[in-house]
């Protein structure tokens, strides 16, 4: 990437969304969503298909008309249900990268990228300079004269990216931009998008259903389900401290351990639960309210499996390995513990055989109390 600073001053804007509701006929796709994106921040909307993340993004873009709520960009409303404001998408000063790339097949790569600049009536020398800069940035410098319909998927994605940021939009929106690429290219592009976003400092809203992608590139993640927000936090917060069963399950693999509270056994600020099988599990509340019946989430990689009994005072139990599944870097064990199945994933060194008796141990801070 041998390019200078962006020609033209980069301007970034904040986004505020309040009580956003979007309906498709009788179906309510987004039911009252509120969040804010700071200027220059990269926020990801994460969730399974049908959770309303793309609809929310398209409402910010102006491509969907919300039923109610308010969307402000840089403090000015671009949509509001009262008083009635609906700024058309082309006037919002945003840009967007589409899932299908949406590269115009009847234009060259150069013309695709130059489109937004021509709309803004820049002079041809200015256009040539900026398109050259943008194509260099996405490593397509040599392909300007190529017909856009003759590009590979990865190249099309880069053209779409260059086209989206070349005119220095205040906000960049991404609608699952990598979902049509193969796994290797996806990992590569993920890094490039993050690098680009850092360099340009553009406010970005990114939609994906891919957890790794969200964890890798976001400043903050918003987890959505059924049109509502389940949790907002940094990638580490979302991963380490899931708020409820849905987030724990959707964001990485987790074991859920249900139990009755045993205040009598609690110490050092930990919460103690007794499982239906009689095991005592100590975990951390992280300031959440503890009920008489509660739930811990334990990531599968946080459960430690060993032949010898570890010398820690709490959270050590005997168990039996039932199934062993080799996954490459990791080995997944299906373990019988406390009369129920549990999943453990460990780095593949010195594998334990099926049927072997082992000890499981978990650091109490990794047993995260859930709110539901």
């Amino acid at each position: 990437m041998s390019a200078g600073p962006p020609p033209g001053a980069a301007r970034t804007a904040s986004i505020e969304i309040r009580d956003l509701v979007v309906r498709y006929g009788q179906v309510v796709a987004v039911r009252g969503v509120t969040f804010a994106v700071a200027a220059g921040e990269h926020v990801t909307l994460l969730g399974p298909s049908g959770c309303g993340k793309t609809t929310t993004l398209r409402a910010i873009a102006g491509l969907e008309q919300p039923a109610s709520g308010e969307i402000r960009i840089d403090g000015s409303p671009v949509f509001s249900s009262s008083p009635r404001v609906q700024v058309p998408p082309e006037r919002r000063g945003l840009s967007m990268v589409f899932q299908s790339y949406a590269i115009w097949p009847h234009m060259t790569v150069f013309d695709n990228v130059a489109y937004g600049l021509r709309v803004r009536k820049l002079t041809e020398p200015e256009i040539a300079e900026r398109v050259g800069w943008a194509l260099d940035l996405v490593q397509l410098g040599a392909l300007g004269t190529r017909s856009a319909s003759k590009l590979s998927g990865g190249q099309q994605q880069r053209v779409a990216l260059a086209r989206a940021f070349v005119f220095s939009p205040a906000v960049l929106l991404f609608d699952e931009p990598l979902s049509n690429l193969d796994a290797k290219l996806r990992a590569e592009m993920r890094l490039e998008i993050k690098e680009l976003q850092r360099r340009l400092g553009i406010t970005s809203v990114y939609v994906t259903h891919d957890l790794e992608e969200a964890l890798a590139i976001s400043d903050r993640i918003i987890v959505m389900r059924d049109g509502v927000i389940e949790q907002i936090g940094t990638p580490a917060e979302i991963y380490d401290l899931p708020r409820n069963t849905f987030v724990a399950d959707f964001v990485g693999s987790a074991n859920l351990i249900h139990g009755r509270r045993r205040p009598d056994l609690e110490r050092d600020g930990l919460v103690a639960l007794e499982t239906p099988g009689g095991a005592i599990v100590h975990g951390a509340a992280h300031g959440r309210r503890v009920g008489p019946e509660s739930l811990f989430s334990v990531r599968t990689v946080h459960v430690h499996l060993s032949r010898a009994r570890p010398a820690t005072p709490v959270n050590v139990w005997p168990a039996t390995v039932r199934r062993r599944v080799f996954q490459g870097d990791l080995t997944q064990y299906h373990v019988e513990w406390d009369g129920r199945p549990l999943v453990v994933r460990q780095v593949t060194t010195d594998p334990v055989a099926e049927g072997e008796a082992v000890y499981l141990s978990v650091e109490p801070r990794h047993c995260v109390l859930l709110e539901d």
Partner: protein
Amino acid sequence: MDDLARARRFRPGPRLVSLLVGGAAAVLVLYPIAFLIQASLSTGDPQARPPDAYGLDNFADLPRYGHIFGNTVAVAVAATAMAIVLGFVMGWILSRTNVPGRGTLEQLMALPYYVTPLMGALAWSLIGSPSGGFLNQVWRALGGEAHLIDVTTPYGIAWVMALFEGSVAFVMIGAVMKSMDPALEEASQVLGAGRLRTMLRITLPLVMPGVLGAAIFVFAEMLGSFSAALVLGLPSRFYVVTTAMYQLVSQYPPQFPRAAAMGVSLFAVMFAMVYVYRRIVQAGSYATITGKAFRARAMDVGGLRWPLLAVCGAYLAIAVLLPIVTLAYASVQRLATAFPRADNFTLANYQTALSLDAVRTALWDSLLLGFGTASIGVLLMGFLAWMIYRSRLPGVGVIEYVLMFPQAVPRLVFAFGMLWAWLIFPIPIYGTLWLLLIAYLTVFLPLGLRTIAGVMLQIDRSLEESAQMCGASWGYRMRTVTMPLLRPGLIAAWLLLFVASVRELGASILLMGPKAKVITPTIVESWFSTSTELTAAMALLQTLAVGVALVLLFTVARRAAQHPGE
């Protein structure tokens, strides 16, 4: 941000324009239909405009014409049955077997459609009329009695219509067969069912809804067809509803209200059929037949390939080659006869045809009208298609429904409504080419809309949205993205509209004025009032003119269609 401040002002723009154009197009369709219905309810003086009394007498009177409705149904049923069998067999051969030359044959299958029922009827009348038909002449020369075939019978008329409509049935059924996932058949064979059993238990049930849909569509078209029944049925006084209407209107004194009542009845039946057709197409029975395009796996039929090829060849020969060769043969004779005689050959018919002012102006007017209809039509229908399938404006569903109405109205019936509607219109366009232009634009709305929509629906919506996200206004997007991407569809629609307009008969024959003649009705007039040989020459000249125009336009269009950077 002054960008945002400016944007917050209300801009009516495309929304208002869309509703105006959509509304105008809807009026174009509904205005004549309203007059048709009004005329059918007139019970006073049949000549009075507007009617001086209303009632249902005209409908109560219809049973008197029961035999005509019977004729119509008999012809339509026979023609539909033949067309569907043709379409099914051709569709199966060309999309499911490894018959040699599949690709070429598939394209040639469109030809029967271009021959038009009128050309077919003229040619088959020359081949198979009971007294002078070429085939019957040969039959008698070989010692046969009376005649071998008679195309002036209901079955003869149905036969001519079926040859033409078989091409439509082929397109519809072939598409269904092609869109069927071959894995469904393979699964049956893997599970041990033989080829025949697979065909009967899997293939047939899966394509059945498609075949049924095609049958209903074709049947509705046949109910409203006009030219074959006119050319072959009129001399022997065999009437179907459309020709009877034509007769009632063109006799003296004309029986407008009665004809209108017939038209409304036909409209009602066809409307119901088209409604059923649309329901079948939309129904869940298509769930297994997805829109995904499969490369249809060709079944290896072994030595059977050649007989199957012969079947396709025979259809094309009978439906395309035979009519054209017959007309050409008749057109170069003084007196059309099956047996060539050196002193009987002449080019005088062409000389006469080209020297007749009526023919020259009619041909020129037709080409001019075709050009106008196609050019205005593509703009209008392109805009309407965008509005209906892209804009997501409220009320476009209703507009789409209304614009598809002409599909369910025979063009003759539609023209009948227009005849009265525009007769009282304050601007005097009656009897001019303008009226024909309006008529063509109205009756071909469904044709143009469907052609353009087919291409438009293939263009991913995000291609337009991404232009919008780049900040392009509606007009700029249309100019730089939507229109260029639609170009192949627009060109196809232009050519279709051009050909359809130049060869239009049903609407033209009623709306043509003495000072604004077009070619197809002129050919029909010539058939009934001058010589067969001259008419054959005129029909071929028309075909030639359309062909030359198409080749010219196609060359231009092909240059225009090339994308930059390729």
